């Protein structure tokens, strides 16, 4: 397995493409516009250079350009006919994700496994969009992908053992370990994390403490390396909101109601680190 399709070149797609290319995989990176793809390549390059500067270069001694040369981009999905494994990382919205799968189901070879990189969307439901539900599984990568070596591997209702094994092989190629969990909204990680972040946003909204103090309590009192609100900024406030909305709709439980302040910030274009302003300024 050495040619990997990566759909969506946002925060996750960029991190994944970089990590894969650094480990010798050929990457086929897709997004909806040339500008987004150019921007993604620029950011990946910046990241590779920062890593080099900080002394975390790949042992292979390759140049930044050699690594970048393994990433091929396209705004159409057709080139995925060459892919041997696909990871989809488009926006956390069902209406966007659902358009992708029937297309790649036609374009990709029959033996190709599709990994959904999602924060909360049902893997089983995604599987139902294809004629290969046994080959659809979830891989919940952590952000930033090149720095986080354990992922949640999610088994949908129809996902086969064989597909899980293929995914494990793929992951071991770039030193990722996985924890297998069953398909349920938010899996393990985000069912807890999103609720925590949402509640932290309520604390700010209700004037209990400001964002810096909320985070300070998690860092200084609980020993977390990062507070929930800086974490939210890193993930992207839009992605947080969409994930909380998915949880709310999936469980039909009011405990997942999205915090109005979070909604307002997303509407105002405050998306966190990726565009310079969230709960904190970057």
């Amino acid at each position, binding site marked *: 397995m050495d040619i990997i399709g990566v759909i969506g070149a946002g925060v996750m797609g960029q991190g994944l493409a970089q990590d894969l290319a650094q480990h010798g995989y050929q990457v086929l990176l897709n997004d909806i516009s040339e500008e987004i793809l150019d921007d993604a390549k620029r950011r990946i390059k*910046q990241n590779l250079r920062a890593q080099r*500067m*900080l002394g975390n270069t790949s042992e292979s001694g390759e140049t*930044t350009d050699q690594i970048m040369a393994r990433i091929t981009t396209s705004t159409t999905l057709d080139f995925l006919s060459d892919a041997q494994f696909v990871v989809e990382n488009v926006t956390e919205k069902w209406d966007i994700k659902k358009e992708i799968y029937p297309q790649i189901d036609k374009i990709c070879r029959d033996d190709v496994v599709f990994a959904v990189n999602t924060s909360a969307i049902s893997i089983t439901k995604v599987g139902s969009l294809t004629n290969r539900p046994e080959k659809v599984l979830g891989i919940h990568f952590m952000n930033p992908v090149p720095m986080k070596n354990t992922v949640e591997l999610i088994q949908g209702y129809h996902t086969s053992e064989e597909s899980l094994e293929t995914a494990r092989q793929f992951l071991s190629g770039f030193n990722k370990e996985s924890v297998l969990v069953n398909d349920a909204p938010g899996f393990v990680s985000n069912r807890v994390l999103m609720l925590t972040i949402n509640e932290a946003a309520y604390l700010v909204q209700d004037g209990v403490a400001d964002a810096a103090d909320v985070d300070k309590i998690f860092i200084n009192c609980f020993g977390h390396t990062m507070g929930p609100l800086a974490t939210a900024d890193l993930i992207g406030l839009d992605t947080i909101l969409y994930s909380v909305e998915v949880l709310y709709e999936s469980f039909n439980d009011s405990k997942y109601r999205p915090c109005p302040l979070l909604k307002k910030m997303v509407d105002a274009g405050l998306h966190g680190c990726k565009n310079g302003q969230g709960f904190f300024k970057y």
Partner: protein
Amino acid sequence: MEETKIQIKDFFSRFFDVDNLADDIDIFANGYVNSLFAMQLISWIEKEFSVAVEDDDLQLTNFNSVNAITGFIERKSSIVA
């Protein structure tokens, strides 16, 4: 040279408090900065001073203090000039 130092500190101040920052303090070793900063620093130097940072330049010793960055920019600019 002094002007370069002011520009650098001005850039640093977007990330951390530079009030008492000595020009030779190692900002990486002293926990002032993270990799997000490293990314932005390289791009900023390239844009602000119109120099190209090559793979071989990407060594911490070129960028770890106000003095190091000033020296790097001077070496790079004089090659072009």
